[in-house]
């Protein structure tokens, strides 16, 4: 087995708020191999975006380690950190808020090249032209401003900016969630094509299981700051073992009127509990149709049940 590109080891990140401590990421371990796409699914508040921010070192973990190509990011010197940040780039959900409205697309794409001192002006111009072409935008878009572009075009600019420094890993945080359905297909196809052409690895964070199933090689499911199940894509869909994973699948809309109407009612009740005061024992037990007395007191640990398939449940 090759060394992972990114490895998150038992990362913990809590946030203190006036209402109490939010356990956003609570002992999470994940790894991504070169060229691999790991899907990360879960509801809002489950900690999936915090995990991406931890990986980017936008926030430091309180404990645990983040390793990129084997180097511990926490102890890296400035030069290593700069190189690391260049090799790992983020694509955000809302490109309009991620792009500076007062800068032209050319300036937006030039920024990372300037910060990382890549090439002279002519080289930067050539690189920007190449980036626009790679993401399917016309050269004259360089002269435009973000508000002059459509949502899909802005997301292409967001992707071009992420590609500027030739990263090895893209962190896509709900990258297609805000797009209209017809545009979503175009942007997903662009990501699939770039991934194949450039051999990129990706952490693909989404609440949309159908999209994750289409793009991910492996999938991790998060619930209240913890990974509750992790498996290769096909294994997860053939045999989801955690009741929460099954609930997510049962809640995903099915585009077939007869099948949608024949579905049994959702096998769980209630909503995501307050992350400030998560339930004792298994955090999912108050909503779980399978919960038994043990689940109320003893937190299940994530354990392997098949090759590459792990689940944190007393009754998988």
């Amino acid at each position, binding site marked *: 087995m090759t060394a992972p590109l990114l490895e998150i080891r038992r990362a913990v990140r809590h946030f203190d708020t006036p209402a109490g401590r939010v356990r956003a990421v609570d002992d999470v371990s994940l790894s991504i191999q070169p060229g691999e796409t790991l899907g990360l699914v879960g*509801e*809002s508040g489950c900690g999936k975006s915090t995990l991406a921010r931890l990986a980017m070192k936008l926030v430091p973990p309180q404990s645990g380690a983040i390793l990129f190509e084997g180097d511990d990011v926490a102890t890296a010197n400035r030069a290593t950190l700069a190189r690391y940040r260049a090799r790992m780039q983020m694509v955000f959900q809302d490109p309009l808020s991620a792009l500076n409205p007062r800068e032209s697309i050319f300036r937006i794409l030039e920024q990372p090249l300037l910060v990382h001192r890549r090439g002279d002006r002519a080289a930067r111009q050539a690189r920007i032209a190449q980036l626009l072409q790679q993401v399917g935008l016309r050269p004259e878009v360089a002269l435009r401003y973000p508000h002059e572009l*459509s*949502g*899909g*075009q802005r997301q292409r600019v967001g992707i071009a900016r992420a590609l500027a420094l030739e990263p090895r890993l893209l962190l896509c945080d709900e990258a297609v969630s805000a797009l*209209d*359905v*017809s*545009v*979503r*297909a*175009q942007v*997903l*196809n662009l990501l*699939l*094509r770039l991934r194949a052409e450039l051999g990129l690895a990706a952490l693909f964070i989404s*609440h*949309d*299981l*159908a*999209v994750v*199933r*289409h*793009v*991910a090689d492996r999938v991790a499911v998060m619930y209240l700051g913890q990974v509750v199940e992790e498996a290769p*894509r096909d294994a997860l869909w053939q045999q989801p073992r955690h009741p929460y994973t099954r*609930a*997510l699948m*049962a*809640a*995903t*809309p*099915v*585009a*077939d*009127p*007869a*099948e*949608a*109407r024949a*579905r049994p*009612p*959702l096998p*769980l009740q*209630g*909503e*995501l509990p307050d992350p400030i005061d998560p339930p004792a024992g298994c955090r999912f037990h108050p909503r779980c149709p399978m919960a038994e007395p043990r689940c109320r007191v003893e937190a299940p640990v994530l354990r392997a049940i098949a090759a590459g398939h792990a689940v944190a449940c007393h009754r998988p």
Partner: protein
Amino acid sequence: MTMTLLEVSSLRTSFATRSGRLGILRDVSFAIARGETVALVGESGSGKSVTAASILRLVEAAGGRIDAGRVSFEGEDLLSLSPARLRALRGGRIGMIFQEPLSALNPVQRIGDQIAEAVRLHRPLSRRAAWGRAVELLSLVQIPAPGLRARDYPHQLSGGQRQRAMIAMALACDPALLIADEPTTALDVITQAQILSLLAELRDRLGMALLLITHDLGVVAGVADRIVVLYAGQVVEQGPVAEIFAAPAHPYTRGLLDAVRLDTLTPGTALPEIPGLVPPLDALPAGCAFAPRCGRADARCRSAAPPMPPGGARQAACFHPLPAPLPGGHAA
């Protein structure tokens, strides 16, 4: 014979812009029968929210103008209604809920008081009786401990509970029609499924009709009776949900369906795309508005706009509709 509750005919709505009046709705017609669920489906800029706002004449407050057409509800012409009668109808016989309940709820008023106020706007009840009705409504939308939650402020509720509270408020006066504009778009998958099944349950229990406005055809497959597809301010196709899903006639409808049927593809393969972008409404192409993005378009489509054939349960405005499936076979 079904009874028509709402009928929208040849509706045209425009907004003033710096470069003149811009037509947002360019001929929208559809009807909803009593107790029926109609999904109005389209992407951003299709005019689906403006359609909802035009029905209740809310567009006028937002700078819009209804230029032509008719909207009749329970036999009354909404476009010639007095302001007082219109206010009585909004939140009375017609309830409405929005995508983001937090922006529609008053942040500094307790949930129970807001619902009680909505009740008292339309019914001569005492404060005490209206509060009782508010708690009853919160219980109807399945909020646990409704008596306690009524005392909460909006920010104290979760996103799903806020949407339930919005629904409770919209149901205050037993509406015959509930208009829901992207009611689940901001919600997580599980909450989305819960809210959709709540809406379907309330519809059946209260016998109300539902106008569901959405960008996502997949979401409405399980709840809608009929689908109306909007593109660039016009209805391009409408029909019963099973027929639309089994054999879409308009190429745009087909494209929308392909986009939500990821599960029929091999993972990692290219998705079917609708090429290009929705045209800006101030620069619409001549002929069919969808022609520049359509694989079936020819010279005729680029010069003349295909009319919507009159009448019938199933309609598509297209010169080259996709063939219907052969009996016992599959759609081409």
